[in-house]
């Protein structure tokens, strides 16, 4: 995985993952243990599973926040390697939304959305601000442009984080448990924004515990456990009749409370 390759991905997919293994602690912990996954362009893939099943690690390998121990990841036809110029190039095209929002605390909402546009995309200030205001409008909080992130509710912060990613015109959006840190009454406002993105044709990979969202928005449901994919397919079919015992056990825990 050290030499730089720019070869065509073997398919019309935005993300192709082959034989992904990620170990931590010098190989003692196998967080991801042989995952193959394809995300067709324009599709929404929901990754679900018990905590510690490796779904977040798979997601973080897609934009190189974690470097795979084995296997290959292609994003938009480009093979991800440990080389930092490759990583930066891939990350420019991939947006990511975190569980804890990770808004830049020392900047205003508007500055949060313009910073990377100006530094990475080299957009002039006026253009970056115009794009930022468009995206804030899109996520429904244009009036918060001059606020500080600390003065926003969790739901509002997460919507700013989505706007910040969208302003970079990503080809792919990754969501890492985007509603897990939110109070119940704020989950819907974030899911609504995500649903709208999905309907608009954005390619998305979503790690989530919101089974209702997975059922409504995902083209493909991937159930993981112990670093492996247990089952994948059309969400409604898996929810209604899971083929695997482990899938059934997981649904029992998350759906029947």
């Amino acid at each position, binding site marked *: 995985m050290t030499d730089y390759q720019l070869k065509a991905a073997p398919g019309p997919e935005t993300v192709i993952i082959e034989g992904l293994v990620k170990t931590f602690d010098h190989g003692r912990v196998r967080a991801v243990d042989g995952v193959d996954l394809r995300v067709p362009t324009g599709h929404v893939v929901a990754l679900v599973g018990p905590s510690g099943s490796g779904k977040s690690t798979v997601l973080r390998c897609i934009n190189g926040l974690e470097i795979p121990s084995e296997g290959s990841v292609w994003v938009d036809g480009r093979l991800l390697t440990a080389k930092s110029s490759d990583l930066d190039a891939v990350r420019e095209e991939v947006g990511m939304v*975190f569980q804890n929002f990770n808004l830049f605390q*020392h900047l205003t909402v508007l500055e949060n959305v313009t910073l*990377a546009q100006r530094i990475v995309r080299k957009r002039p200030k006026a253009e970056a601000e115009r794009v930022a205001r468009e995206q804030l409008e899109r996520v429904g909080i244009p009036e918060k442009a001059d606020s500080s992130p600390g003065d926003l509710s969790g739901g509002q912060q997460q919507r700013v984080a989505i706007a910040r990613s969208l302003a970079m015109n990503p080809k792919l959006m990754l969501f890492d448990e985007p509603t897990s840190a939110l109070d119940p009454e704020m989950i819907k406002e974030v899911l609504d924004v995500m649903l709208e993105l999905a309907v608009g044709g954005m390619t998305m990979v979503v790690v989530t515990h919101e089974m209702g969202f997975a059922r409504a928005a995902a083209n493909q449901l991937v159930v993981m456990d112990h670093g492996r994919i247990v089952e994948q397919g059309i969400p409604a079919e898996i929810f209604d009749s899971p083929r695997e015992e482990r899938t059934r056990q997981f649904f029992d825990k998350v759906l029947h409370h």
Partner: protein
Amino acid sequence: MPITGGAPEVERTTLVPPMSERFRASARDFPYWLLAIAGILGWMVFLIVTDEKYRTAFDRILPGLGTTISATVVGFGLALFFGLLAGLGRISKNVFVRNIAITYIEFIRGVPILVLIFTVAFVVVPQLSGALGFSNSSVTPFTRAVSALAIIYGAYLAEVFRAGIESVPKGQTEAGRALGMTSGQTMRRIVLPQAIRNMTPAIGNDLIAMLKDSSLLSVLGVRELTQQGRLYASSSFQFRPTYLVLTFFYLSMTLILSLLLRWYRSRLGLAND
């Protein structure tokens, strides 16, 4: 007390604390220490204004004030630069860079400041002059002294920078990197601005410490406040007025800095004491 009568009793006292209780609370929080120090400084001013001996000592020490302040300002500016470099080196993933930084920090922290000032003035500067081809005698005591302070405080500040950078949550870096910013851009635009805000109280403490340690430069004959005082005391034998006035100079300066720092901390919403 009977159990039935307890509840309303408690309620009344917690809702509106009686006058005496509120007075006691504000009496607890009153800064008596500030009053005491202001009183001591006031007494010193009184002596300087009314007593000829103290006034003379004041007049003889005063010319050192500019040197003390410029040594502190220049030395601290350089120390911030060294501290940032060493602090970044300290957390570098590069084994070589990290160990260079740790060697520097541990070396400085393992030797007394007074010894280091002599070492820089009489070992480091002559060695460098040989290696870099400038004349050793062309380096003034002031330059030697300020270099020493900068090198010493650079090591102390390196740890402040390291702690400050590590105080910024990892998610901030990840968000920057995920947006396609390089690690340098993320450090400059996202991590450092937040780290420096967290570090300001610690940096302020080191600035106060350096102002006081600048008195050690007198051992190199630099004519800052302490050296002026020593020269005057040994020629006039007016030890009592000299050292009292010298104390006055340092205490008034550190008090001003300390109050500024407290004001800044409370503006950030951090607790004092």
